[in-house]
């Protein structure tokens, strides 16, 4: 009797393990497919972000007695209509700035060229070493290879952008309408003995990611707004474009602020017309970054992710190594997910 019971237990356990293996394999395959297919990964990231932003609105419609599908449709449409108009005006402002940049670009190039020659001459004066390295040649070669790479990747950028523009609203709508059913369908694959813990983990992850995305967007908005005000006060050219770059790139941890504020410092260096703005540019970039690091990030983001700064840094480095800029972008949420899973699994083990 006892051996029959243990046989049954063993069968039940192996069935549960098989189910767990199937759930893990399915989730990993789906995730890998999304990550590998860049055309899908970018709209997927955008849609998830928008899902967390718009879900409270859909819930509001549902509370008022409207069906979820109608709420999802209204939320998606009302977001994408003004978003298209705002994007159009921001992009047209940015294009105007770009056009103005384009006209001043030959001048900038000449200035850069002269600056390098001047720098080379001064360096030769100060350091009395004969060397046969032509810095100008190196810089020109480097810029040429950079433009070749840009020409090579630009079709991909255009195709990815088009895919993102088409797929994002569709994916957002389906996520808003069916996220619960999708989550439940995936959780139904879990073995019975892990069902409640899987459900709790899924719920905790959803809460954490939602709060993180909202906090990062608020942080980017504040940084963008501060940059716009400061650029306006100092009378910087291309202020809308520069503030947009500073705000958007701020979403990427660590490297984002450097990339975002680099153009603000480079313009006064490269264009003598704005040379007087170099110190205000440095001061402004430092001040906004200090405000971000000392106030906005700790108040808004750190509390939510609840990770040790060293762990955050490591995860960003690993993310950058594995997935480049996209890897950096998703590194912190993935680290937070790993922490939740570990805490739940270890917690259950300790209990």
């Amino acid at each position: 009797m006892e051996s029959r019971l243990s046989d049954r237990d063993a069968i039940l356990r192996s069935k549960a393990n098989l189910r767990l293996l199937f759930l893990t394999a399915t989730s990993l395959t789906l995730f890998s497919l999304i990550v590998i297919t860049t055309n899908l990964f970018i709209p997927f990231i955008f849609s998830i972000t928008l899902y967390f932003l718009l879900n409270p609105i859909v819930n509001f419609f549902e509370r008022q007695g409207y069906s979820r599908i109608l709420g999802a449709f209204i939320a998606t449409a009302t977001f994408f209509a003004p978003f298209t108009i705002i994007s159009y005006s921001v992009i047209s402002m940015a294009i105007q700035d770009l056009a103005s940049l384009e006209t001043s670009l030959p001048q900038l190039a000449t200035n850069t060229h002269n600056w390098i020659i001047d720098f080379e001459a001064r360096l030769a004066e100060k350091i009395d070493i004969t060397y046969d390295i032509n810095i100008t040649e190196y810089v020109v070669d480097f810029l040429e290879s950079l433009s070749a790479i840009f020409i090579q990747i630009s079709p991909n950028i255009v195709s990815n952008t088009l895919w993102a523009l088409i797929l994002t609203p569709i994916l957002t709508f389906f996520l808003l309408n069916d996220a619960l059913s999708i989550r439940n369908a995936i959780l139904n694959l879990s073995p019975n003995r892990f069902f409640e813990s899987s459900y709790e983990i899924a719920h905790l992850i959803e809460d954490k990611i939602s709060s993180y995305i909202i906090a990062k967007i608020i942080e980017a908005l504040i940084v963008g707004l501060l940059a716009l005000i400061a650029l306006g006060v100092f009378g910087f050219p291309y202020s809308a474009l520069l503030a947009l770059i500073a705000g958007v790139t701020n979403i990427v941890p660590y490297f984002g602020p450097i990339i975002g504020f680099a153009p603000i410092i480079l313009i006064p260096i490269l264009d003598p017309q704005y040379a007087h703005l170099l110190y205000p540019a440095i001061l402004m970039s430092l001040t906004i970054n200090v405000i971000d690091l000392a106030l906005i990030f700790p108040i808004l983001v750190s509390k939510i992710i609840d990770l040790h700064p060293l762990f955050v840094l490591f995860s960003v480095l690993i993310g950058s190594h594995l997935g480049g800029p996209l890897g950096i972008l998703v590194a912190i949420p993935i680290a937070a997910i790993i922490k939740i899973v570990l805490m739940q699994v270890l917690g259950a083990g300790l209990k």
Partner: protein
Amino acid sequence: MRREKIRQESIWKDFFSAEREKNPVLAALKENALFQDLNSFELRYLERIVHIRKYEAGEFVFQQNETGIGMYIIAKGLVDIKIPPKAKNSDGEEAVITTLNRGTFFGEQALVEAEAKRTATALVTEPSVLIAFLKPDLMDIVHRRPSLGIKITMQLAKVLGKRLKQTTDRLSEFAAKSDYGK
């Protein structure tokens, strides 16, 4: 007259069993005390939220002292509710305190309690279908459909109140017997 009444009862019985066979989950939800105030639209909505879990004989739904986050309604099958033997050094088997069948539910304490520990073990004794209704589901309903959330929580409060009253009555009975013994 009596035969007519029996015939009518059997007609209704057949009607309900036909419906049960068509959609056992919806039927189980409809018959459950927690959801008895819900109209058909609300029941359909709830049906999309709850989780259908299939168990084989010998599988645990949960074990005593595990952290729980929800309750289970039996749509089909039998579940034993067991507790360990009273004496700490006893190596006897767990005692079955009750066997639950179709339509009954258990684990509802976890819907209201934070970090709730299961007070007993639930073991499936024949192939069963259980409907899991978890605390995050209830919170989702409260956020998305507050009127439905209130209906369910009011019924939940009634059920928990009833159980508390039953326990108090048993304790009073026990205390009275103890006093009588003295």
